């Protein structure tokens, strides 16, 4: 029997890599459609964030199809999200499906990860298998991140955005098929050659915009975030440094330099999600980006908390900031409208030399 998971953009491919290394298979999660969003809304508590609703909608769709074994990776290190460890919540929602079980991978250390896997798959899981499984997972996470980031940049820089979309599609399929580090390395080389051979526009990017926000919603580049990605084709260099890779790679030690960047902006005990957003905003401002785009899931408490802090940082640096709340009452039209107006504003400022 296959396991199933929710998508978080293309990152289910990495979870599939982990499971295959352990001799299991993972079904492809359904794409997020209005019906799945609606199902998530019906199931979830109204105050759950929009990312959470998407996850629940996808899980429900698969349970109704007959899948029963949920496998999900929240983090290998500290959680970015206060709501991510929701096994009990899922049990309360889905316990009525006979045979339902939730397997949460990850954990704060190798030993915890090993213990987690053994609790799900039995004591026969060996240490070398776990090493191999997490190597596959992290290798795929890194490569997915590289492909998505580079392709978003190329949609701004390349003369043929349509070919960029094809390259990305093909790269993700190859990452999914790749078994082992050598195969992943070959995919990486193939992708580099393909990306490097694309003809570039004569003119450079008109604007550079740094994207910060909720890591879970930023993962959704293939669905909700598609509208934002399209902005790149107007000659806007979109840079985001968060996403699923950051969650998967974060450790308490790796967070320290980020927290240091946030000194003076964040106080007390901020959540990891707030640290990511604040630290990246500090970097973008320091590097002279033309604007900041703050994207967060409606209902996300850490991102709601960081919003006024980002506003203050942007205002004092003289960098325009647009906060976009993505939720179940969001309409693409409204999102496009705000993005277009923001880009117009940045262009007008740049044209008149404001803020430089």
């Amino acid at each position, binding site marked *: 029997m296959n396991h199933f998971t929710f998508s978080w953009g293309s990152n289910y491919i990495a979870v599939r890599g982990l499971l295959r290394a352990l001799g299991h298979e993972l079904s492809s999660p359904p794409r997020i459609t*209005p019906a799945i969003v609606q199902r998530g809304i019906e199931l979830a508590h109204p105050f759950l964030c929009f990312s959470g609703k998407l996850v629940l909608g996808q899980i429900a769709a698969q349970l109704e199809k007959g899948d029963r074994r949920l496998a999900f990776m929240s983090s290998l290190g500290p959680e970015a999200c206060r709501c991510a460890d929701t096994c009990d919540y899922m049990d309360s929602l889905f316990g009525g499906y006979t045979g339902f079980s939730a397997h949460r991978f990850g954990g704060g250390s190798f030993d915890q990860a090993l213990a987690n896997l053994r609790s799900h798959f039995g004591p026969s899981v060996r240490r070398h298998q776990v090493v191999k499984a997490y190597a596959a997972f992290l290798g795929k996470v890194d490569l997915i991140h590289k492909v998505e980031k580079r392709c978003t940049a190329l949609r701004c820089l390349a003369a043929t955005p*349509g070919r960029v979309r094809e390259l990305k599609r093909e790269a993700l399929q190859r990452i999914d098929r790749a078994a082992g580090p050598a195969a992943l390395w070959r995919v990486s080389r193939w992708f580099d050659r393909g990306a490097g051979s694309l003809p570039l526009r004569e003119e450079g990017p008109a604007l550079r915009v740094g994207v910060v926000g909720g890591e879970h919603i930023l993962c959704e580049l293939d669905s909700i975030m598609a509208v934002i990605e399209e902005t790149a084709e107007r000659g806007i260099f979109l840079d985001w440094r968060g996403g699923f890779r950051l969650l998967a790679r974060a450790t308490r030690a790796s967070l320290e330099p980020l927290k240091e960047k946030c000194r003076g902006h964040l106080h007390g005990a901020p959540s990891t999600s707030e640290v990511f957003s604040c630290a990246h905003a500090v970097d973008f401002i320091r590097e002279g980006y033309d604007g900041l785009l703050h994207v967060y899931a409606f209902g996300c408490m850490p991102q709601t908390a960081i919003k006024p802090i980002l506003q203050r940082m942007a205002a004092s640096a003289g960098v325009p900031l647009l906060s976009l*709340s993505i939720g179940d009452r969001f309409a693409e039209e409204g999102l496009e409208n705000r993005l*277009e*107006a923001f880009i*117009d504003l940045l262009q007008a400022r740049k044209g*008149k030399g*404001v803020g430089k």
Partner: protein
Amino acid sequence: MSKKAWLGVDVGSISCKVVVIDENDRILGAIYRRTRGRVVDAVREELDTVGRAIGGRVIMGCGTTGSARRFVGALLGADVVINEITAHVRGALSLHPEMRTMIEIGGEDSKIVLLRGGVPVDFAMNTVCAAGTGAFLDQLASRLGIPINQLGELATASTEEVEIAGRCTVFAESDIIFKQQTGHSIEDILAGACRALVRNYLNDVGKGKPIVSPILFLGGVAGNIGIREAFTEALGAPVIVPEHYNVMGAFGAALVAKLEQRAASAMRSIEQIQASDFHVESFVCPHCENACEVVRFVEKGQGMGYLGGRCGRWQEEDAEAPIPVRAV
């Protein structure tokens, strides 16, 4: 040689606005009307009026804006299609270059734009709620059985301060019922509702924004004197409502069309538009599991253009697949 004119059309959730300008950016004619859900018919009827108003002038270009800008742009053959925030700023700055804050409240949208030295530096729009917009006033007028255009005047006759919970139109309605039951006058309730709308706007759209004079107030709601007075009171500064406050987006679209004029305008003649059977359909793309909703503009049975779809296939191809459609 014929005199020239440029057309701007702004179609929003509630109303349709058309402006015609001349070579000197002067407004030759401006029309504002409610669409009542019949957008294409409203645009056609307004164009008919415009056709008569411009006399022998030749329309050199056309710009569209508003939430229906794309499909109205396809209907007209617009030369430029721009978002309404930019359109309002362009229009307002042309008439009031000294403006430092622009407040715009329409049927279901509200905006604030901050400008410094004639350059927009920050903006915000309402998020997930229309409680601080014209929809709130429509609901209120309907509940009280008052024509919407009399609401503001009645509010100015208020003699006693009444607090209305304006955070949500539904709760506001409950509160209004309660206030009626407890004997408050309609005038006092209306004035309270105007203050509630302004409070809501300033706590949502205007939150954290330094609102500095000169402040321009635009959009259909700016015609309501009760709201104007509530803004002046809340901000401690006068709000300027310019002559063409309710068609500024259309004016801005016309200005941009003029500025970016092409050698030959793509705009169709008013006669062609009137005779067209243009309509809009939507279908669910069957090509992958994304199941995107795609909007198709149709004329004489042919697809003229597409909106929507995450992969861009419908914008890149002209494939006319036999897909079941439903009228929008």
